[in-house]
């Protein structure tokens, strides 16, 4: 069988290649000057080129063993480029931790592929959809693919490697956060049919994603150094991406993956400016009137969102999540305008709300439109767990306002101290990856 079609260049793989290629180009040109004088500069560029090629193969592979191979090779290369200077013990420990994590993922993926291949008799992903696979095989392979995705995208409880990965050079972090860490979302979208047929699995995807989204965001807000803050933020964003997959909104998850990747790559490359970034005082507590107006203006935003993305205002399925999030963001945007001193506050607040909604809708619809032929936008009907998480997302957002009401010197109850310490400890990098003695650092 020599004419095995190894590749399948569909909308998803083309989009991914564009993303990785673009980020690769930016990171590469950045590194030309950034890495000047580095002993391993040449090796770095070779590894960068290899990594981008291998990711390109990964995202366009149709022949499943090729997918597994590219997955494994890409992750090996990632570990190598993360390590950079092997004399630095902490960097070595980071790479080692990531390698262990990725090995687990690769084994899970290889097993899933083996199960799918043998039970269906076909090794083409594109052909799998049309072949019959026994329920048990489907369930096992689904769980295994999920494990691979969780480990790749640093979903709780597989998040440790990501929070410990910051010993790598800055450009590597930029590339990774826009690249391979998204592998989980890609993988689930690639095998969407496996998940869509098993509602319980979808719910697990959703639950694990939601936990990670909440934890990651909470940890992000607590971090004291810029890079770990970015890493925790990525963790939260990966959680959200996975939760979207769990809602059946695979296309929205891919949209999230792409736009988040670009945003985060930029923030990493720009992380040298962290010390000069001035925080505008956010701790002014909004008045009730401002809050009410903002909610209404947020509603205006939500209407614009629905209009631009050509959806009903209040969908009866899981797309409701995206609408509610749009509404929250528009409300927050309008509220911060009301709290600032613009000249025509109300007008600008309305404009900001509508603008946020329209750009969000535009970016989301662009990717959904490009992915339309794949038919991976399959909203599910809302069930209890969905409502709970949606409620939680609203409550934690509202709780953030309460925080501003507490003066710094007020009494803090014991449970809050315990919560703070346990969250702080949970978000620490793995011990061996910390350079606890200065002279252990090596360049």
């Amino acid at each position, binding site marked *: 069988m020599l004419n095995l079609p190894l590749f399948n260049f569909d909308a998803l793989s083309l989009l991914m290649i564009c993303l990785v290629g*673009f980020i690769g180009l930016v990171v590469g040109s*950045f590194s*030309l*000057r950034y*890495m000047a*004088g580095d*002993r391993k500069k040449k090796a770095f560029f070779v590894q960068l080129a290899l990594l981008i090629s291998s990711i390109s193969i990964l995202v366009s592979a149709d022949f499943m063993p090729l997918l597994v191979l590219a997955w494994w090779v890409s992750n090996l290369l990632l570990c190598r480029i993360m390590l950079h200077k092997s004399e630095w013990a902490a960097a070595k420990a*980071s790479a080692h931790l990531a390698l262990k994590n990725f090995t687990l993922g690769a084994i899970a993926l290889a097993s899933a592929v083996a199960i799918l291949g043998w039970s269906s008799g076909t090794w083409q992903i594109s052909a799998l959809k049309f072949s019959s696979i026994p329920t048990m095989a489907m369930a096992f392979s689904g769980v295994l693919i999920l494990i691979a995705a969780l480990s790749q995208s640093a979903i709780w409880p597989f998040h440790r490697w990501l929070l410990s990965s*910051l*010993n790598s*050079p*800055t450009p590597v972090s930029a590339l990774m956060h826009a690249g391979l860490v998204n592998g989980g979302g890609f993988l689930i979208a690639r095998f969407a049919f496996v998940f869509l047929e098993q509602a319980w699995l979808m719910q697990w995807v959703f639950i694990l994603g939601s936990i990670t989204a909440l934890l990651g965001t909470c940890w*992000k*807000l607590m*971090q*004291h*150094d*810029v890079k*770990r803050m970015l890493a925790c933020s990525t963790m939260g*964003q990966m959680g959200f991406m996975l939760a979207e997959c769990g809602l059946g909104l695979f296309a929205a998850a891919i949209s*999230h993956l792409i*736009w*988040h990747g*670009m945003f*985060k790559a*930029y923030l990493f490359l720009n*992380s*040298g*400016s*962290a*010390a000069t*970034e001035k925080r505008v005082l*956010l701790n002014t507590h909004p008045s009730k009137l401002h809050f009410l107006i903002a909610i209404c203006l947020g509603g205006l935003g939500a209407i614009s969102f629905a209009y631009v993305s050509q959806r009903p205002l209040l969908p009866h399925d899981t797309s409701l999540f995206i609408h509610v*999030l749009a509404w929250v*963001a528009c409300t*927050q945007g309008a509220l911060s305008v009301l709290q*600032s*001193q*613009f000249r025509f506050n109300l007008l600008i607040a309305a404009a900001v709300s509508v603008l*946020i909604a329209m750009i969000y809708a535009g970016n989301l619809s*662009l990717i959904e439109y490009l992915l339309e032929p794949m038919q991976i936008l399959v909203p599910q009907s809302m069930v209890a767990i969905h409502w709970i998480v949606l409620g939680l997302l*609203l409550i934690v*957002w509202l709780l953030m306002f309460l925080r501003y009401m507490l003066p*710094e*010197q007020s009494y*803090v109850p*014991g449970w809050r*101290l315990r919560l*703070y*310490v*346990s969250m*702080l400890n949970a978000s620490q990098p793995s011990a061996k*990856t910390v*350079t*606890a*003695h*200065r*002279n252990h*650092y090596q*360049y």
Partner: protein
Amino acid sequence: MKFFGQEIKHPEKLDLHQFNDHAHHDIENLKQDIHSSWGKIAPTWPLKNLIAVNPLMGFDSLPFEQALVEAEKYFLQKEIPQQMLEVNRHSIKWLQAFYDQGQSSIAMPLRHLGLLHSTLMLLKHDRSLVQRGSWQQAWLEALPESAEEIIQSCLSFLNIEKDDYALMMTLMLTTLPGWSAYTKYRCEWADAADQQQHVVSESEYLAFRLLLTCLIWPDAQELLIWHHTISPNQTNQDKFLDGLHKSEQQYQHRLLNQLSKQKPPVDMHCPSAQWIFCIDVRSEPFRRALESTGDYQTLGFAGFFGLPISVRDQITDDNYASCPVLLKPQFEIQQSPCCDHEHHQRGHLRMQGLKRIYQSLKYNFTTPFNLVETLGLATGLWMGLKSLVPNLALKLKSTASQTIRTNFVNDIDISGIPLEQQINQSANALKMMGLCKNFAPLVIFCGHGSATQNNAYATALDCGACGGRHGGTNAQVLAKMLNQSSVRNALAEMNIIIPDDTVFLAAQHNTTTDEVEIFSEETSDHFAHNLEKIKNDLVQARHKNSAWRLAQLYPQKSDAQPALTTQHHAQDWAQVRPEWGLSKNASFIIGPRWLTQQVDLEGRSFLHSYEWNEDKEASSLTTILTAPMIVTHWINSQYFFSTLDNIAFGGGSKISKNITGKIGIMQGNASDLMHGLPLQSVFKNDDEPYHECLRLSVMVYAPHEMIKSVIDQHSNLQKLFANGWIHLFCLDPVSKQQYQLSQELVWTPLN
């Protein structure tokens, strides 16, 4: 978990009553020990004003050679005991949290209680260290209140002999040197705003370190044993010192030789303009370039122009000290737009409003998921432009920010300085720079600052004399004072007669691009013509100096458009070597300009103008030796040690740096606070240094008896010269002899 083993091993340590016996230990003695242990630590400044310091300042009462041996014992050890690593990890975690100046949105609670008591409260809840019902918990609960008492309890818990108290505490500091150095800064140097909010004291920090040590490593007295087993590598040391002496002598010999050939000018003609630059080594090549373009006289003076001021921006309400860190600002200068205040105020508020929208979505729950999708496309495009067509990106950026907030020229309000003080300050400044007669029609005070992007170490390239800020404002203040007739009249009474047609101007030298911006107020025709000529000359000087600097950066390449290339450096967010800063600095020359004018000093010399025969009581010389010289010595030592060992005394590579708490640099996930200059500032590449390690050679053009009399009065100077931290040379104008000050503080004739 190590603690389980400890529960059985140290039951006696739960017997808290034993502390009461020790409580009578002389707390005064303990305070002495605390003080002496902190004596070994030099402070380090935060990123907002990176001031150069001698990292071995704590050892400068020792001879240089011996200080190196001590430094090796305390700071250069490749390994420390395994358990200490765990103590450090926990220390770093809490110090990161406590010292955070606005990175986290959910801050560490209870910080208002100070470092010790906030961490103590939180440690009780730290299940990774203190299990419920463990001995650690009971022990923590029973600790006394004050920091000194806690130190005492911890030291007796660890079974440390009284004689070893000081050493043990020193080791607590030197095994995590960067964070200790920052604490030293916070305790002794930080401005009130930083310190008042979250208090920390030297005792508190030691108590905090010892507490963690007790919890994690009850056998920490082994740390003392470890320390005593260290034997410094004498042969390496000797080899290094041999090489150092040789290269210093080579450099000094060449320089002295060049200087001895210079002759004072016969007639003093009045130049078309006089420029006063900062003593910074980067001024030297630029002055040379500028002098070659026209009839200019240049002088060197501390870049804050002698003014102990702070500057408040009326639009943003930012306030900063713009003078050396050794001084306390005495006057506040108001800075505001020259016209249409209301309009610019609005612009500022608009910018703040936009930032608020962005930040309220970013540093929040739930909304960041949306934010990234909203901004993803735009940031992607922006990032692409910035990397692939940086010039276009910068144009776009400035157009956008212009639209939101129009640029304006700042006007300076000096009414914060009473007239009498204005007269005093200007008279002192003019006397110190030796400019009391022969005023040119134009006198230009030129401060300096750098321009870099995405550079955590940006302030290390700015004016150290202005406390790590841009020096233009100080120049503006002095020029403005001297242009007032009230000040001039008073100066005339002191015999400093400024001709009526002399105008004082302020300017700022951008050390990254070599552009000089002239802050001009006057607009008379004659004046405009002169200014036009000066601006043309500045373009030439810029071209010349940029070309020279690029040759230092890229020895292999020759550049057809040097000014354009340095411009790119200043605008490139990926640039790790925007300029060489003060690298290669090696000497400080105190004397008139003719002494150095014909010599190519290769940008390695600080230059201070000085006319000995107008300084009858040696008061200017005293100031120069006790203030600017100390600063140049600190700068020189910072570069020296950052090059000598970039890991122990420097910041490490910029490639893996991580900014913590907006105050400092860590390497990777978390590490000691990496104080000192980054690798890229002093090394050409990972393996080859660019900076050459040479101790500062100070050359003074004045009679040797006069210099000696100043030294005799200042023990601090004697200490530095006698211990070989600075080489002092005298170019005696009377005897025409060259002398070197020996370490016995005697002049040795050289030729």
